[in-house]
C-alpha cells in the first residue's frame, strides 16, 4: 500500500501549505481570520500515548464565534447489525459508508446550536451528527439513520470521534486558542483542521490547515519492514521466537 508514501509526500508539502489561507463565504478584502497549529506533524514513536496540539489564531474583531473542526484521513467503514437467529446473535444487515473520516473532533466558543444555523452546521459538517455519511445502498430512511448513528457511536467509543464540543477560548477580543487531543489509536495520514469564523449564524471567513500523523523511528521501521518485505519479516519473527524460546529454556535449565 502506498498510503504511507502519500503521507510522507504530504508531510513535505505541509510547510508550503501551512501558510495558505482558504477564504470562503466572503469576497476579497482584508483577511479576517488567521489561525495556525503549534505543530503540523504528530510523530508516533514507541512511547506514543496520544498527544495534544494547540491551535491559535485571530479574528478581525469582537462579536464573532469560532468553530474548529478536525477530520482524519478518509476510508470506507462497514457497519453490521446483529440480529437474533435461532437464539444466536448473528451479523445480518450491513451498510458500507464511503469516505468516512477516521477521526472527527469539533471545538467552539459556545454551544453549536447557538452559534451556527442548521443550514450552516449541515453544510460545514459542524458536530458529529452532521458528518456526511454516504452509502451506495438504498436503505429505508429509518434504517439509514440507525446505521449512521451506530457508526458515530462506535467511533466515539473508540475515542476517535469527539463526544462533546471542545472549548475555544478568546484571550481578549481577537486572539483565540484551543487544545486538540489525539488519542493513541489515531490513524496515520493527512488530517484537515478547518477553522470557521461565524457571525449571526453564517460563516464569514474560513481557513484550512493540514496536519500529518505519521509513525517515526523504531515503530515506523517495524511497520515498513512488515509491509515491504512480509516474507523476510515472517522468517525473522519465527527465527527470533525460536532463538528466544531456546535461550530462555536453557537459561532456566541452568538455574
Amino acid at each position: 500500500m502506498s498510503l504511507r508514501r502519500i503521507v510522507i509526500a504530504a508531510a513535505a508539502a505541509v510547510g508550503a501549505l501551512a501558510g495558505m489561507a482558504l477564504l470562503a463565504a466572503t469576497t476579497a478584502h482584508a483577511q479576517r481570520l488567521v489561525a495556525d497549529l503549534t505543530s503540523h506533524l504528530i510523530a508516533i514513536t514507541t512511547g506514543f500515548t496520544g498527544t495534544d496540539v494547540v491551535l491559535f489564531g485571530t479574528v478581525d474583531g469582537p462579536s464573532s464565534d469560532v468553530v474548529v473542526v478536525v477530520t482524519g484521513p478518509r476510508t470506507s467503514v462497514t457497519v453490521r447489525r446483529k440480529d437474533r437467529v435461532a437464539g444466536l446473535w448473528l451479523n445480518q444487515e450491513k451498510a458500507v459508508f464511503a469516505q468516512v473520516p477516521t477521526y472527527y473532533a469539533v471545538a467552539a466558543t459556545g454551544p453549536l446550536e447557538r452559534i451556527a444555523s442548521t443550514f450552516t452546521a449541515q453544510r460545514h459538517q459542524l458536530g458529529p451528527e452532521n458528518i456526511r455519511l454516504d452509502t451506495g445502498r438504498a436503505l429505508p430512511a429509518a434504517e439509514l439513520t440507525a446505521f449512521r448513528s451506530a457508526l458515530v457511536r462506535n467511533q466515539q467509543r473508540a475515542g476517535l470521534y469527539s463526544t462533546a464540543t471542545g472549548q475555544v477560548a478568546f484571550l481578549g477580543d481577537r486572539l483565540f486558542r484551543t487544545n486538540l487531543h489525539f488519542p493513541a489509536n489515531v490513524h496515520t495520514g493527512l488530517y484537515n483542521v478547518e477553522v470557521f469564523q461565524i457571525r449571526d449564524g453564517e460563516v464569514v471567513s474560513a481557513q484550512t490547515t493540514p496536519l500529518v500523523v505519521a509513525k517515526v523511528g523504531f515503530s515506523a521501521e517495524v511497520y515498513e519492514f512488515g509491509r515491504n518485505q512480509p516474507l523476510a519479516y515472517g522468517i525473522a519473527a519465527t527465527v527470533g521466537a525460536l532463538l528466544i524460546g531456546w535461550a530462555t529454556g536453557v537459561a532456566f535449565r541452568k538455574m
Partner: protein
Amino acid sequence: MLQIYLPIAEMSVDALAVLAMGGAVGFLSGMFGVGGGFLMTPLLIFIGVPPAVAVGTQANQLVAASVSGVLAHWQRGNVDVKLGLVMLAGGVFGTTLGVWLFGILQRLGHIDITISLSYVFFLGVIGFLMLIESGRAMLRRRRTTATRGKLHHHIWLHGLPLKMRFHRSKLYISALLPAAIGAIGGLLVAIMGIGGGFMLVPAMIYLLNMPTGLVAGTSLFQIIFTTAVATLLQAATNQTVDVVLALLLLVGGVIGAQFGTKASGYLRGEQARMLLAVLVVSVAGKLAWDLFARPADVFSILVGVPG
C-alpha cells in the same frame, strides 16, 4: 504504567499488563502442555487488539513458548520425537485442508460464527469429557488403592493397518491414528488460529493411551512446527504479526512456562486434567454466553477495506 506503542496493531498498551498476561497464560501452558492460544486470543481481543493481529501475533509467541516448554520436557526424556513427527505429517495435511475450508466459508460469509461455534463445540465437548474422566479417576483413587485395570483397552481404532512401534511411549499402534489426530489439530490451527494443544492432549491420552508424562512434551514438540508455519503464513499474506506485542507476550510467556512446568511436578495427572477441564469448560461457557446474550451494542463497525 509503562505504555508502549504496537506498530502493527496500531495502538498503545500497558507493557506490564501484557507481560503479566503472557506470564499467566505461559504458566498454564507449561503446566498442562497446551499452547494456551484458546485463552490468549480472546484476552488480546478483549484489550482491544484487532482479531486478525491477535491470531497472527500469538502464533508467533507460541513458537517461543513451546520451544522453551519442550526443552524442560526434553531434559526429563518426556518427548516422543517419532510420534511427534508422525502427528506433524498429519498436521501439515490438516492445515492445508483447513486453509481451503476457511476460504470456502469466507466466500459463503459467516466465517465469524463458524469460528465462535467451533470454539464452543470443541472446547465444550472436550472440556466436559475431561471433567467426567478426571473426576472418575479421582474418585477411583480415593476409593481403592490396588484395583488395577488392564494396561490398555483395545478398541477398533487400534486394529487399523500401518502398525508402527513407538518405543518411547511403549506403543505399537497404527501410524494412521496419530497422523489423524495431528490432521484434526492442523485443521483447528487454520480455522481457529490456535495451537490446538487442548485438543491434542486429551486425544493422545484417551485415543492413543500414551503415558500421561509424555503427552505434554510431545504435543508441544508438534506445536512448535505448526505455529512456526502459521506465523510465516500470517506475516507473509496478511501482515498481522506484531513483533513488539509478540516479544512482550513471549518474555512473559517463557518465564511463566518454566514455573508452570515445575508446578506440574506437584500435581497428579488427574488433578492437572481436572484443572485444565475446568478452565476449558469456563472459556467455552463464556464464548457460548457471548453468542446467546444480547450484545451491548448490536451494531459493530469495521474501518477500512475488509481483508
